[in-house]
C-alpha cells in the first residue's frame, strides 16, 4: 500500500496493531524485521503529519 494513500487515522491503527502484536508475543521472529520496518515507516509518517516537516516541504514545493 502506498503511504501517501494512508490517512493518519489508518496509520495509527496499523501502528497500534503491530505494537500490540509484538507486545503480546504473537509476532514470530521471521516477520519481526518486516513489521519493524513497516512500524518505523508508520511512525515517521505520523510524526511528519503532526509536525512541521510536512508543512515545510509543502511550502518549499510551492515556492
Amino acid at each position, binding site marked *: 500500500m502506498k503511504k501517501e494513500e494512508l490517512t*493518519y*487515522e489508518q496509520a*495509527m491503527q496499523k*501502528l*497500534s496493531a*503491530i*505494537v500490540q502484536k*509484538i*507486545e503480546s*508475543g504473537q*509476532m514470530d*521472529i521471521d516477520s*519481526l524485521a518486516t513489521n*519493524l520496518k513497516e*512500524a518505523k515507516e508508520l*511512525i515517521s509518517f*505520523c*510524526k511528519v*503529519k*503532526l*509536525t*512541521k*516537516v*510536512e*508543512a515545510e516541504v509543502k511550502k518549499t514545493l510551492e515556492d
Partner: protein
Amino acid sequence: MKSLSLYELNNLVRSTLENTMCTFYWVRAEISSLQFNRHCYLELVQKDERGQGIMAKARAQIWANKWYAIKGHFERVTGQVLSAGMEVLIQVEVTFHELYGYSLNISDIDPTFTLGDIARKRMEIIQSLKNEGVYDMNKELPLPRLLQRIAVISSATAAGYGDFCDQLNNNKFGLAFHTQLFPAIMQGNGVEESVIAALNRIAEDLDDWDIVVIIRGGGSVTDLSGFDTLALGENVAQFPLPVITGIGHERDDTVIDMVSHTRVKTPTAAAEFLIHHQAEELGKVEDLALRMFNSTISIIQDEKHRLSILSNKLPTLFEMIKQRENARLDRNFITLQSLIIQKTANEKSLIENKLQRLVSATEALLTSQQHKLEMLQTKMDGADPQRILNLGFSITRIDGKAVQDASTLHAGQAIETTLKSGTIKSTIQ
C-alpha cells in the same frame, strides 16, 4: 368662561406632576429605539402579553453627564451594549416640559435585570435547540485525531486572530498547523448573518478542514448579543465539523458557546487547546514507538537467551550422542569379531573335514592300487619267460623276434635259441 393658555395648562400639568410624583421610580420597560447625540435619547414601550400590541410608550433620555457611567457599568456587567429590544429596569424621574411634553429622565439602569432577561432569552433559545434535538449535535462529534487544518472565523482586524496564529505557530512541539481566516463581523448586529455566511463558506470545502474555531479578541467588553441567536445556535450546533468557541467573555456563555463542541475563554486558549490535542497525539506516536522498541529488544534478548541455552546444551548433547554411538560401535565390533571367529572356525572345520576325506580317499585309492599292483605282480610273475626257461623250455628268435611257427622259417636262416642259462646260435638246414 375662564380659559388658560396652552403654556399655562402645560405648566399646570408640570407643577401638578412635580408636586405629586415621587423623586424617582424604578420602572421595567423595553427599549424600542435608542439614539445617541451627545445625550442618549430612547423610546420605551411595554408590549401586551403576546408581545404584539404596544400598551404603553414613553420618551426617555439619559443626559451626557450620567450616560458614560451608566453605559460603562451596564456593559461591564452584561457584556452587552444598551440597544433596542432590550428589557431594562431603569430609575426614572418623571418630567414634563411645557414645550417638549412628557418624558422620563433616566438616572440609573440596573444591569442585573437585563442580565436576567438576557439569560431568560438565552434559555429560551437553548430550550428551542433542545426541542429541535440539535443542542448536543456538535458536542457529539468525535474530535479527529488530526486537528491541523483550522478554519478560523474571526474579525481580520481583531488582535485575537493574530494572537491565535502566533500561539499556534510558535508551539514548542514543532507541530504543524494550517489556518485560514474566514472574516466575519464579531460584534453588534451583523454577527449572526456574517458568522453563518462564514460557516457556509467553510461548508463548501468541508474536506479541507478538520475543525472550526470562532474567536474574538478580548479587551473591551463589547456587544455579544449577536452570538445569542437561535439561527446561529442552530448553525453551529448542526455544523458537520467540531466547532471551538473563544468569544472572550468571562462571565457568561453565549448560545454558541453552549452548543459548540468545546468552549474556551480566549483565542490563546483555543490555540492551547489545539496544541495540547496535537501534542498528546504526538505523545501517543512516540509512546507506540518506545513500546515497539522495548518489545523488540526484549523479544530479541529472549531469543538470544534461548539460543544460548540451546548452544550451551549442545556439547553435552553431542558428548552423550558420541558416547552412545561409540558404545554401539563397540558392541557391533564385538559382534562382528565373534561372527568372524565363528565363521573362520566353521570354514576351518569344513576344510579339515574335506582334507580328512581327501586323505582317506587317497589312502583308499592307494591301497586299492597297491592291491591291484600286487595282483598284477603275481600275474606277471607267472608270465615271466625266465620262469619258463627255468622249467627247461627255450625261446627261439630270428632277428630278435620270437619264432612261433616253424613253417615261416627258411633254410639258411640264422636263429638264436635262449635257454635257462646261455644262448645257442644255429643255422636252419
